[in-house]
């Protein structure tokens, strides 16, 4: 096992290197083939290596060379890394195929595909290095490589009409975050034997309260930049909007996760906090991020920007789960901590899957219609039925509608927040309740948001003047999309097989196992099983649970958030059984309706529109109209500025045009960055004001400072 895993990792790096070399040296279609084939090999190798670790539980470790004064470079694939590595492979496989297909059809020869290939493989390598780095140096170096490669990939199309500033902003923010991360490692590593993670972890247990807080705040801020948390996420929507369609799936499905990985690694693994304070901050920030993200997503009409805001929302949910886990762990409740962490990891996995799918879909829509404006789309389902189905699956999944995967992880997240009843402090409980409510509101708005995204793009009638030109190529579902849609379904229907795998990573961090309480083995357990309370087992036996043990392998198909209470069935949920029941009920209803309405035929003809001869595109609901109620209800948050309000008339009463344009400044910009920016500007002006250019003034400054310094010396 051990050797095989290592071998797979070597295979990955070799394939990656080959990819870089071959993309650089090939041309034309060969580059695309290189990208497709070598990426597939890489992705498969990653998934296989990660799966081996998760199944066997053994973490292979490689020690690289030693650099004097810095310590050893170590690579290690432990369970936490494996989960993120697995996600990475899961996303890279379809994303790379999508890249090859997209470039093959869209840009032909003119496109700088070679450069893209080089960056693509280099980024893949650096991401994997971040995930398997087991000392601060290699971690930080590969992090920096990743940041720069991201920047290059966001801007590589060099379209004159894309916002090149977006890439700079992302790079600047990444660098600022990087500094924070370095400082956090410095704080943790002060007094450690060396900067290997093992030494840091040992040191982490001895850290003072202040050092832990310092490491948390700096690390949270630094990784929060990558994870897209408020208030350091303002780069994210701009950058996602500007990024080429070939790169965003990776941006959203892979690099976003690195932020979560960093938070988990630094703040839960290496330097875990003791009390609940740090966790509470993470919980609150996560919940707020989720709400702000979904509010802006709901009112956004550019599909890419909307998906970017929705990524922020999902990041918020994940970080809220991590925060809840930190609170539980800090308060000494290991099992709830494990459950919350499982939820967070599960959501990370889910989000990567469906967001990749959605971004691929939006890329296909843009390629096919030439627009991303949902106001101008509409009626795509007729032109592109295949794309419509996979996009619908992704929308349902991200709106947390069973039987898809988003439902499971959001359900566990909310359930784990409800477990705050065990906590002692009532003020913490109140914060949990508020965050729970915020997340519930977020979930509701997410449904609105994605109903709009699907309905306004795929249903109704075509509103824009686009011609569905490339729909033949892009409209049909392709392996890269179908694969992800199936993943959405499987992850949603079979969570009981996913949770034990995640548990491998959860157990060492949360110091307890979640699988025992989340997916109890009651199928195979006899009524006299000692692990589970007898009343609980009895209940399930009475429900007939054991009958499945003959047919179904594993732990059964019921998810459970079991409390300490007597009645254990309260929090049980089985998406697997639900889908069977759902299918059965739907079939039954269909039969009944068929039987009952035989006397009556349904008139099938055009949509009824009040008798007008033809429903025109001008007369159908737009995405703006659909989300306007949300905008009105949350006006206090959006604070739209009416920048233009014209009512043009000819001869007083012949109205010829009414135009009201509103501009919104993003909440985060308004509350954080504009004040900070203003302060910096003010200070800069002050400094500039001191530079008069006259010699006398400078001499005066010098004298004043000299006096000040003398005074200081005198005083000390």
């Amino acid at each position, binding site marked *: 096992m051990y050797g095989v895993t290592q071998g797979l990792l070597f295979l990955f790096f070799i394939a990656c290197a080959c990819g870089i070399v071959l993309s650089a040296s090939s041309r034309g279609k060969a580059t695309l083939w290189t990208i497709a084939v070598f990426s597939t090999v890489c992705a498969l190798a990653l998934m296989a290596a990660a799966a081996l670790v998760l199944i066997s539980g053994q973490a292979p470790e490689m020690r690289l060379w030693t650099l004097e004064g810095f310590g050893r470079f170590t690579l290690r694939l432990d369970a936490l890394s494996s989960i993120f590595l697995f996600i990475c492979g899961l996303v890279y496989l379809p994303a790379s195929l999508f890249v090859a297909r997209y470039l093959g059809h869209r840009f032909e020869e003119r496109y700088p595909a070679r450069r893209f290939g080089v960056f693509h493989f280099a980024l893949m390598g650096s991401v994997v290095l971040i995930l398997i780095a087991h000392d601060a140096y290699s971690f930080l170096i590969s992090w920096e490589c990743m940041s720069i490669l991201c920047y290059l990939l966001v801007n590589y199309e060099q379209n004159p009409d894309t916002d090149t500033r977006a890439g700079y902003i992302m790079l600047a923010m990444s660098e600022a975050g990087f500094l924070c991360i370095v400082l956090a490692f410095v704080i943790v590593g002060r007094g450690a034997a060396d900067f290997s993670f093992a030494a840091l972890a040992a040191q982490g247990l001895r850290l003072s309260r202040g050092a832990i807080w310092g490491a948390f705040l700096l690390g949270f801020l630094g990784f929060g930049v990558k994870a897209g948390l408020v208030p350091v996420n303002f780069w994210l929507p701009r950058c996602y909007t500007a990024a080429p369609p070939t790169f965003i799936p990776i941006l959203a499905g892979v690099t976003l996760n690195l932020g979560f990985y960093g938070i988990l690694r630094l703040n839960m693994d290496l330097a875990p906090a003791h009390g609940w304070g740090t966790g509470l901050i993470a919980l609150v920030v996560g919940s707020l991020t989720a709400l702000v993200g979904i509010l802006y997503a709901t009112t956004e*009409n550019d599909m890419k920007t909307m998906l970017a805001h929705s990524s922020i929302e999902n990041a918020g949910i994940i970080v809220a789960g991590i925060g809840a886990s930190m609170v539980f762990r800090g308060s000494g409740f290991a099992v709830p901590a494990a459950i919350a962490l499982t939820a967070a990891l599960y959501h990370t996995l889910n989000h990567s899957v469906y967001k990749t799918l959605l971004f691929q879909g939006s890329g296909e829509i843009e390629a096919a219609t030439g627009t991303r404006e949902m*106001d101008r789309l509409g009626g795509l389902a007729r032109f592109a039925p295949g794309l419509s189905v996979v996009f619908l699956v992704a929308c349902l999944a991200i709106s947390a509608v069973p039987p898809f995967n988003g439902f499971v992880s959001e359900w566990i997240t909310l359930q784990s927040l409800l477990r705050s009843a065990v906590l002692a402090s009532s003020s913490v409980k109140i914060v949990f309740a508020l965050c729970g409510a915020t997340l519930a509101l977020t979930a509701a708005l997410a449904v609105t948001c994605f109903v709009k995204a699907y309905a306004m793009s795929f249903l109704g009638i075509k509103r824009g003047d686009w011609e569905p030109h490339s729909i033949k190529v892009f409209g049909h579902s392709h392996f890269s999309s179908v694969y992800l849609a199936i993943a959405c379904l499987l992850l949603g229907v079979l969570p009981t097989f996913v949770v034990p795998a995640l548990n491998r990573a959860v157990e060492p961090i949360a110091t307890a196992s979640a699988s025992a309480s989340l997916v109890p083995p009651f199928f195979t357990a006899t009524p006299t099983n000692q692990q589970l309370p007898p009343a609980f087992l009895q209940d399930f036996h009475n429900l007939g649970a054991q009958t499945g043990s003959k047919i179904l392998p594993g732990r059964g198909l019921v998810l459970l958030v079991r409390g300490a209470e007597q009645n254990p069935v309260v929090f049980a949920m089985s998406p697997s059984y639900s889908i069977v029941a759902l299918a059965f009920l739907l079939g039954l209803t269909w039969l009944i309706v068929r039987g009952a309405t035989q006397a009556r035929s349904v008139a099938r003809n055009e949509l009824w*529109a*009040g*008798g*007008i*001869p*033809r*429903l*025109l595109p*001008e*007369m*159908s*609901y*737009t*995405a*703006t*109209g*659909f*989300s*306007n*109620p949300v*905008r*009105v209800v949350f006006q206090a948050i959006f604070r739209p500025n009416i920048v233009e309000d014209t009512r043009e008339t*000819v*001869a*007083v*009463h*012949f*109205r*010829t*045009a*009414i*135009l*009201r*344009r509103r501009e919104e400044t993003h909440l985060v910009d308004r509350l954080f960055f504009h004040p900070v920016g203003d302060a910096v500007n003010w200070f800069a002006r002050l400094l500039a004001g001191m530079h008069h250019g006259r010699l006398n003034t400078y001499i005066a400054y010098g004298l004043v400072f000299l006096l000040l310094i003398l005074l200081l010396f005198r005083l000390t």
Partner: protein
Amino acid sequence: MAVIRATDPPAERLDREALIADLQRRFHCDVAATESGTIASIRVTDLSELRPLCRSLFWDAGCGFGGIVVEERPQSWEVRYIFLARFAGWIEVLVSLPLSATTLPSISAEVHAADWHEREVEDLFGLRFEQHPRLGDFILHDQFWGEGLAPFRKRFDISKAHSNGQNNVSWRPLLVVRDPGAFAMPVGPVYEGGIGESVHFMLETVGEDVLRAIPRLFFNFRAVEKIAEGKDVGQALLLAERFAAKSSFAHSLAFCAAVERISGVNVPLRAKQLRVLLSELERLRHHAGVIAGICESTALAVSAAHAAIIEERLLRASCCFTGHRYLFGLNIPGGLRRDFTEQQCQDLLSAVRLAAKQLETLEDRLSFTSSFLDRLEEAGVVAPETARDLNLVGPVGRASGCGHDLRKECPYGLYKQYEFQVPSEKQGDGYARLRVLFQEAYQSGTLVGDLISSLDSGPIHAPCQSRQGFALGWVEAPIGATLHWLRLGESGLVERYRIITPSFNNWLGFHVAVEDFAFQDFPIILATFGLSATECDR
């Protein structure tokens, strides 16, 4: 309790003679003697002076705008712009054009109320109005009809079917809201609100508030004016009475008045009195119906039920009194078709008194129902200046402090002899319109009582021989001023019949005046205007 402000409109009498003399001084025009003394006719000889002249009449002299009557004479076009000189009769501005002419100057930019008149003429006669800001899709919907049909020209045979056949797929509505993401919510013509008239609304919105409501009317266009041509007076009367039932008596009265004016018949006193009585009965019933509609639109079910019962009882009383629930078949040129006994009059009186009393109770209750008032107040506000610009008529105009009442300003029949008040409000919102409706209904109830107590005993009909000639008949219909312009040919057959209805006037005002309202207020605003699509469409 609602404040009753039943005052006469603050208008001083216009000196028509001085006005005309002034116009003669300033413009090149002849003042023609008219066949009927009530109309002063100004013939414009220089077409370029038409606009300034109309402007001067409407804005400087403060005349009300009546409408445009276009007539295709054997040798020429005759276009009449009818203005009301307040308390001093009518002024018509007459323009003659050779039949070969295809254009004439538009006055809509000066007198906005002429907008739809000009568009109608363009659609029906093919005469183009130069510099009109917005021509096109109007009566003959561009979705169905090609260009250049001109069905009101003499050469067009209306009795033959002219298949509109085509479904013009390139038709696009004219939308003005340019906000990103704006769209037009289509409502109708098979009205989504339940039982309603055929109107198609395009509610332009970006989601919550309606920025502008564009009505597309004329789904009920039956070309009444055209099919009346060549018919005798008796047949045409049927049309006049039956094209808009909610004020059928007013319209038949206006038609009869025109015929009587042509033939110079003196209607007997009793018939005149009964005509006033029946007009006021119709007004009372109409207003009760509009009030019921307003109550229904605010979803205040009990009050809607009460108002509906009042209306139905008045319908029944009308039926007992006249034999028809909508007063059909009563007016004939020269008087009325039938007489009524004293007992019938007393029965009617008690029914009307009861209705008036019940309306008072209803108003009292409504004025204490805050949920009702909240929805009406500030709903669909029409400022007095706007109302004047758009020449709003009837209760809607009077709720905005404008609205001429022909019963006062240009009295016909016996109105000069009876005492009544014309309510007027300034707020111009839905509630003001409701108050005006209530006040007018009370006034009508009182008038009915006065008339029944003072009925003359004489004949109800004078023989009326139709002659050649033309005349204008005017009546203050329940919704507002209505004008029927009629020309009878040599054999007494109708040569040109033009109906100018208050709904036509106020529909134009409605969509221009009402902008920017919440979607759920739309039915309420519409109900307070009490408009009739079929009366507008003809």
